[in-house]
């Protein structure tokens, strides 16, 4: 938290650092920070070679050429950078570590330099002039290190005059690494697990059912009402696709209870699928179209099998990018669903509509112990949208929060909305072997939070991303907060919603939120 200092006049004031503070460059500061590499089995489960190929160099260069032919973004971004430097102070990992290779343009150049060497006239004949270099084992290792220090949050892309998106380069680099047998343990193990069990946790249908039944009991104890968390119910209207962290982790689970209460209050029938019991799609992180498609496809299969009419996504950042921007491409067309609703829909859109329709009874004072702020998750903010208006991905969550809490303050403008700082754990970095990087990468966001704590007494931060929530519950204690100072938005909704027939301790009548508030 902000340091309380007393100046010579005896005035107390909080001293907070600047979230945009640019550190001195420290070459190689993060060169030895590496995540564990994947075991051969897991690489093979994803269709990649198990171990580093003998002719890896040849394969990697060919793969690079193939990707440039298959992906316009990759091709154009490699060519158009003018090294203007506008992105150099935009990455939270550079701001947090000072390692110059964590500057977006420098990160791109790790790969661009090799592309130039093999695929451009200038790089073939005048490599020294344009900084082109051969693909050596050292370069490959450097790729592994620094392309796993990018959370693919796209903050740099917003800053770039040409829209160059480092996430695209980073995804391509990981795809090339995978194609020569160098996979990352965290991502590849999880994708392999999902293909076997339907979720990242490896939770089987029986265990999932037991978990949901426990939660139903908790809800009934709390409200006195049998709120259901249905699993594999054929013919339900809505299929809920939510990150598996919602089944077991805090504060995720409280968000899940929030969705259940909203669905209950809205009187819709819904279900979770044990076959597609995961919203997360790590295929995106490793840049593998095929793997991402395979994971997405399970949602289509589950929707068909259960005969649902709508698909609603729970609170998960990158899942919503895949859901909103890619699902129709990867697993569509969804002509078998009810076309009068967006496909898929975000739970925030559902809850927002429910608020507008006035069907939720809300007692805001039940959240009075919290002074809230909201963290825009990168993939929601810069890779997706919500609602019918541009920028709905910023406005809808804030509208829902303000409908259920009395105390809300935004963080500094350049650290939220499209300029939001990543939590430091996205893009396949949410692994303990990268904890040092994660703590440093969270610094800009944490500093912005400390500012609103100093200025407005903010106590808690809400988010709608499973990765953000897990990351913050781990790193917030390093910045003077408690691990439960991070909350789910639907946790706040769950606190404030009063179901029909629910016994409440308080006597004051719940207020119904009017449409449009």
């Amino acid at each position, binding site marked *: 938290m902000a340091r309380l200092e007393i100046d010579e006049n005896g005035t107390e004031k909080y001293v907070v650092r600047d979230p945009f503070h640019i550190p001195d460059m420290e070459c190689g500061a993060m060169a030895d920070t590496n995540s564990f590499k994947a075991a051969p089995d897991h690489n093979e489960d994803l269709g990649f070679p198990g171990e580093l190929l003998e002719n890896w160099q040849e394969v990697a260069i060919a793969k690079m050429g193939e990707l440039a032919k298959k992906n316009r973004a990759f091709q154009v971004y490699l060519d158009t950078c003018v*090294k203007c*430097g*506008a992105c150099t102070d935009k990455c939270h990992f550079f701001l947090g570590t000072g390692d110059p290779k964590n500057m977006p343009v420098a990160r791109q150049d790790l790969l661009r330099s090799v592309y130039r060497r093999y695929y451009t006239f200038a790089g073939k004949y005048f490599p020294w*002039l344009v900084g082109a270099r051969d693909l050596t084992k050292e370069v490959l290792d450097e790729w592994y290190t620094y392309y796993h220090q990018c959370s693919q949050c796209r903050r740099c892309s917003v800053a770039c005059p*040409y829209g160059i998106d480092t996430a695209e380069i980073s995804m391509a680099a990981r795809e090339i690494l995978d194609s020569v047998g160098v996979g990352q343990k965290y991502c590849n193990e999880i994708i392999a697990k999902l293909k076997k069990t339907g979720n990242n946790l490896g939770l089987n249908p029986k265990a999932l059912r037991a978990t949901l039944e426990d939660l139903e009991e908790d809800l009934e104890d709390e409200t006195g009402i049998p709120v259901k968390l249905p699993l594999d119910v054929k013919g339900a209207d809505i299929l809920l696709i939510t990150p598996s962290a919602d089944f077991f982790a805090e504060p995720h689970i409280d968000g899940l209870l929030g969705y259940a209460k909203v669905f209950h209050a809205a009187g819709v029938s819904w279900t979770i699928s044990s076959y597609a019991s995961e919203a997360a799609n790590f295929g995106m992180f490793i840049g593998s179209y095929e793997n991402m498609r395979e994971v997405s496809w399970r949602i289509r299969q589950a929707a068909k099998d259960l005969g649902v009419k709508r698909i609603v996504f729970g609170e998960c950042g990158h899942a919503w990018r895949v859901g909103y921007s890619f699902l129709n491409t990867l697993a569509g067309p969804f002509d078998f669903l009810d076309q009068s609703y967006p496909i898929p829909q975000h739970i925030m859109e559902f809850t927002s509509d429910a608020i507008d329709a006035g069907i939720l009874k809300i007692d805001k004072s039940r959240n009075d112990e919290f002074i809230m702020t909201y963290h825009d998750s990168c993939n929601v903010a810069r890779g997706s949208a919500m609602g019918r208006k541009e920028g709905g991905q910023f406005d809808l969550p804030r509208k829902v929060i303000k409908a259920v809490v009395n105390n809300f303050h935004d963080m500094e403008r350049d650290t939220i909305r499209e300029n939001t700082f990543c939590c430091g754990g996205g893009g396949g970095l949410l692994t303990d072997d990268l904890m040092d990087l994660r703590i440093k990468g969270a610094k800009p966001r944490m500093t912005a939070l400390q500012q609103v704590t100093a200025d407005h007494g903010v106590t808690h931060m809400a988010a709608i991303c499973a990765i953000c929530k897990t990351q913050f519950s781990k790193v917030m204690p390093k910045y003077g907060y408690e691990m439960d100072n991070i909350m789910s938005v639907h946790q706040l909704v769950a606190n404030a919603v009063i179901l029909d027939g629910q016994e409440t301790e308080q006597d004051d009548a719940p207020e119904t939120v009017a449409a449009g508030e």
Partner: protein
Amino acid sequence: MLSTLYAVLFYIATILLIVGTGMKVLKYARTPAPLKIPVSPAPRTRAGVVQRMGREVTMFESLFKSNRWIWIFAILFHYGMLLVLLRHLRYFTQPVWWWVELIQPFGVYAGFVMVLGLLGLLARRIVVNRIRYISNPSDYLMLLLLIGIGVTGLSMKFLMPVDILMVKQFFLGLMRFQINELPMQPGVLIHLGLVAILMIIFPISKLMHAPGLFFAPSRTQVDNAREFRHMSAWASQLEDLPESIPTEEGK
């Protein structure tokens, strides 16, 4: 003799510029974009994208928001250069178009503005550690080349006047496939030589950012993935996956 050499040089440079850039642009246009990746918030309609790109091209909107110093120098340079280029149309038109006539006096000052912007960009590249770190020799040389073009151009106006009528005869001649004499003065020869180099390296250098800008999916795509199914040719060729849940899996 030297005039013939310059004539040939300009024919080659023009061909390389047009064909080279054209080939690159065709390559960009033909490369599929497999997924919808507009950086949001993004326009929901094509008209909105046209406006977004219009602001990027004419005002460097993103750069304005991300780095004010680079933006100032970039605007000075690019708009200075635009006026200078328009002013140079008088060497290629007979009679000179009225609006080209009109901007002549401004074009001269624009030359100074352009060089000033370039010097600013060069200074940043040298002075700011982070930008020096990401710079290659070609990045400095590109700025020096443009500064060289600007300075030799200005020097012909203010220090060592050149017979510009002869220069005009030379270019009008080239346009009609005749080779006329160039004035044999170092200013004009260096100036034109540097311009020819710039034209030749355009398609194989980072100057491709100019056309490339229009092919960045992050800015040019419409945010409508839920409403319209976006498919690339290669992705629609992928093997079909089963529509139903395999029996051994699931429940």
